[in-house]
């Protein structure tokens, strides 16, 4: 295995009052350059794990390292290494795409020249050049998803966390986003991705982990897992490993 993008060892975490998901001794390793999928039913703990990996939540025990740097330390240096595309629209709706990218670019530590260059590139790639100076609040859901993504990658991160990046978008936007993510990965960015769009995930992820009730049910190469369990697609494998009961 090449060097690790993410190394989680013996992770322990619980929400105050033990409400919600609890992790107890979770281990996970994701290699640099991988396209890794994190799947599970509602309430399985995907977002919690992603929040722990991005430092939004702090682990009770164990360690989480990104490219060898502990996320638990207060150092903001490690935050430069990754980009995060949350499920919610995480930008200022009153501002235009350019204005949002200018602000978030500066906070990622880029200078004005780098920001201008990356803004131009990203808006072109994601098909937003024609609305670059319009307030985002009037945009469609698909356009907002693309801006959400653009902000997360403006600083060319080595690791990109994506929490359901294509939820609620049309086929064209999904296609554009997935293609761009593959392009990023080809250029060396490790993708760590969660989604309920399992068919989409099949096309993107090389390796996956299925999570349920705060533990990893199964982890490995997607093709090998499908072969091992004799399933044609990820959805069947998912139902087989996590059951068909409703989840909260």
């Amino acid at each position: 295995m090449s060097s690790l993008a993410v190394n989680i060892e013996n992770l322990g975490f619980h929400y105050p009052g033990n409400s919600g998901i609890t992790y107890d001794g979770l281990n996970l390793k994701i290699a640099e350059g991988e396209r890794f999928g994190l799947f599970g039913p509602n309430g399985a703990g995907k977002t919690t794990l992603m929040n722990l990996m991005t430092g939004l939540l702090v682990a009770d025990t164990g360690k989480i390292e990104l490219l060898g740097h502990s996320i638990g330390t207060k150092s903001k240096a490690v935050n430069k290494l990754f980009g995060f595309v949350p499920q919610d629209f995480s930008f200022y709706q009153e501002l235009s795409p350019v204005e949002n990218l200018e602000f978030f670019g500066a906070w990622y530590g880029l200078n004005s020249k780098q920001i201008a260059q990356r803004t131009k590139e990203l808006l072109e790639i994601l098909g937003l050049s024609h609305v670059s100076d319009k307030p985002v609040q009037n945009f469609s859901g698909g356009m907002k998803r693309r801006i959400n993504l653009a902000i997360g990658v403006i600083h060319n991160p080595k690791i990109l966390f994506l929490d359901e990046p294509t939820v609620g978008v049309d086929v064209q936007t999904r296609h554009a986003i997935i293609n761009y993510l593959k392009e990023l990965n080809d250029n060396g960015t490790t993708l760590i991705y969660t989604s309920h769009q399992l068919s989409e995930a099949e096309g993107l992820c090389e390796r996956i982990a299925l999570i349920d009730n705060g533990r990893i049910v199964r982890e490995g190469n997607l093709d090998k897992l499908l072969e091992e369990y004799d399933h044609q697609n990820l959805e069947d494998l998912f139902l087989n490993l996590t059951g068909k009961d409703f989840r909260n």
Partner: protein
Amino acid sequence: MFKLWASIVKDVRVLLRDKVGISLMFIMPVILVIVVTTIQNSTFQLMNKNKLTVVVCNKDAGKLSTQLIATINKIGMFKVAQVDKKLNAQQIADGMHANDAMLAVTIPSDFSAKIEAKANSSSNKALKSFGLQADSAKEVKLTGATPLILYYNPSIPESIRFSVNGALASALQIVESRETLRTLYFAINEKEMPQQLENEMLNGKAEINQVPVSKNGSLKAPNATQHNVPAWTIFAMFFIIMSLSGSVVREKVSGSFIRLKTLPTNYAVGLLSKQITYLGVTMFQALVIFSLGLWFFPYINLPALNLPADIFGLFIVTLACGYCAVSYAICIGVFANTQEQANGFGAVSIVILAAIGGLMVPSFVMPGALKTISQLSPLHWCIQAYYGLFLEGAGLKDVMISIIPLVAITIAFQAVTYLGLKRKNLI
């Protein structure tokens, strides 16, 4: 530094697109300062330049009631409208409505007789004490005078009612004194008192000159503008809480904050940016409202604002007030969980702090305990500092006594904000 600059640019852009927030921060206080100053100025003019119409129902046929009406007229505060003497209380009330009067006075039918009797009695007593009349002289037994009745519209402020009462009492005193003097003169000289002597004795009273006490020796009398412009400027500054605390909460509860927390920049930079941006807003608010007082008020027949001599002092006081307002708004924004909480608590708390701080009623008229509590309001120290500059002709050095507590309160707000940010793991 670039991060801070980018944050300030972002905050200014977001602010400029918040039309409601801008209206609350600029248009609302401008309307408030114009309306309140106009109202207070009209009250001042009502008492000093315009005349209050007073309906007089004179039931007395004697000459003294006529003198009383003439004296009331002479005070200069009233325009007398006389009505039929046969009117009852209800008809007098109707007469008030008909004459658009807030006040009415009924002079009782025995008014002249009672004053004459009292004048005779006083005169006899005086003669006796001078040794000019035998002790055996018959003393007239006096019965109590029938009071004048003052009817008033309940909407008339208590302060005006007391002023009117005082003016009427003064008129009554003049009539009584004149009658006593005339009676005494007649008793001694057995002839009428010469008009010239009467005028000299009654009208030659000492005048009262009102002199404002100022630190720089200026004799300019303060007016409604001098009081209201600083007061409502402070109110406007603190009212930025509606926009600023809302902005902090919006950022916290919106998705953007999730991303901000994952960025390699401390959120304290974002808060510093908001402080700088909104401090600029408060300074601009002061500039707009002071300019209004200086140049716009004279156009709408309001007294112009007289700027203090110490302009640097004015700048420092405005800066201190603005920064305190910003610190308070951010503190509320950090602790509030929803925008409704921030706006509701923010607006109500500012009105309370303004009231106890002496913006609406001067703190020197407050009862003892409230006077002490008022010192906890940052708005109290703001208004004290501004009054020092605008009304007392003080300089920066003189108003430091108000700036120091204001700075202490600001530091307290900042400290509480820091603890709140730490507790909520926001920095």
